[in-house]
């Protein structure tokens, strides 16, 4: 799934608040060699970006990789798109672990760089869990997303990428998303007894667990 | 009592009295302690101690101390031997003295090697 091979093709884009657009993406400069098999090999420098003022940068994506993926998982792939030259797959929540295993073992996305979540309260599935995975063999990233409603659990990928452990805990800590199958799901940054999930959009920046603060710190407010 | 030890005794009284007296005197000099609460708790990196510190520790400490005692006894036997050794050597009995000590040390060395084999001297 090299960037160059991506061929923008209009696919239905039911993404919620972002309006879908058919504007072609920024001209794709040959950022990386097609097969950066050795991660050590210094890829060619990216040419300076074309000074074209882009308006909307999210385009549906359908390249060879997506086709392969679709063939294997079919309906589990809800959506494939590209945003600023980055492939994004939105997949079905229930089959996340299976897909993750496939990505790790067959597509060689062996490192999970980052796992986080975004809260879109107005959508019917408000949480978007975002996984940024990286392949040493291909020297490229892939973004994987699953959607979850308020009470829905997301399968944990700790078994696939152990590094997800703390990151999932952090997401649980901040968003209250429960990861089923996580070995030790508890708060990580906030105190264990803290009430509320601060990174949800309905949690005000000045809000705090006043009861906890009073009880444990002996002060009225941490502000 | 040998007369040489009288100054030692007086000196001993002096040195034991010195820290004790200064400790008491310092009490009058320094401001009264107003500490309370956490300041009087043992240092536990900021977390309340989870258990009494006088718990149990590795048995290796015992083994080390025990070996020390044994070797200390050995040293205590070696020292009288050492101070006589020159005389024996001068009287051409050095070899006998040496052999008797080699015998003594040899038996203990057997124990040492056994411990070494057993790994009793390993800390980890």
């Amino acid at each position, binding site marked *: 799934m090299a960037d160059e091979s991506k061929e923008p093709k209009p696919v239905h884009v039911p993404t919620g608040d972002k309006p879908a657009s058919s504007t072609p993406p920024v001209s794709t400069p040959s950022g990386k060699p097609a097969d950066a098999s050795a991660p050590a090999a210094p890829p060619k420098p990216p040419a300076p970006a074309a000074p074209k003022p882009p308006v909307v940068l999210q385009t549906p994506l359908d390249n060879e990789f997506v086709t392969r993926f679709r063939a294997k998982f079919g309906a589990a792939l809800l959506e494939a798109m590209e945003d600023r030259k980055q492939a994004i797959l939105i997949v079905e929540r229930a089959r996340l672990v299976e897909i993750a295993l496939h990505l790790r073992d067959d597509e060689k996305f062996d490192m999970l760089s980052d796992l986080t979540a975004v809260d879109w309260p107005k959508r019917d599935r408000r949480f978007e869990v975002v996984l940024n995975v990286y392949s040493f063999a291909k020297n490229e990233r892939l973004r994987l997303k699953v959607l979850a409603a308020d009470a829905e659990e997301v399968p944990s990928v700790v078994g696939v990428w152990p590094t997800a452990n703390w990151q999932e805990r952090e997401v649980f800590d901040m968003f209250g998303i429960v990861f089923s199958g996580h070995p030790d799901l508890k708060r990580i940054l906030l105190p264990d007894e803290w009430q509320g999930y601060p990174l949800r959009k309905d949690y005000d920046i000045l809000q705090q667990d006043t009861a906890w603060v009073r009880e444990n710190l002996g002060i009225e407010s941490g502000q | 009592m040998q007369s040489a030890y009288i100054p030692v005794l007086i000196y001993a009284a002096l040195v034991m009295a010195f820290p004790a007296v200064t400790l008491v005197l310092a009490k009058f000099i320094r401001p009264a302690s107003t500490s309370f609460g956490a300041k009087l708790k043992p240092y536990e990196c900021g977390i309340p101690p989870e258990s009494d510190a006088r718990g149990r520790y590795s*048995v290796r400490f*015992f083994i080390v101390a*025990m070996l020390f005692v*044994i070797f200390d006894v050995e040293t205590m036997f070696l020292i009288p031997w050492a101070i006589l050794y020159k005389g024996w050597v001068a009287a051409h009995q050095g070899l006998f003295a040496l052999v008797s000590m080699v015998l003594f040390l040899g038996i203990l060395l057997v124990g040492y090697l056994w411990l070494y084999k057993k790994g009793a001297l390993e800390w980890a």
Partner: protein
Amino acid sequence: MLPIGHYLFLSLALFIIGVIGVVTRRNVIVVLMSIELILNAVNINLVAFSRLYGDVAGQVFALFIIADAAAEAAVGLGIIIAFFRNRETVLADEMDLLKW
């Protein structure tokens, strides 16, 4: 040197205190310490007589006794450690098994 009786009495006192300690205390460590006291009482006698007769044999004996005390303490305390590990106690009356 004072008359030998002084030393004998001192030695006796320590010996008896040691015996009382051995018999009454439940904590085996204290029992062992009391035994050390008894050995010590013996040493006082030996040294006192050594002084009395001007013969260092008594002191040599005391030296051996101290070496012996070291060996005894090492093994005795080793037993206590082993016992404690198995039974979580250092009390004498609970040491009622020859084998565990």
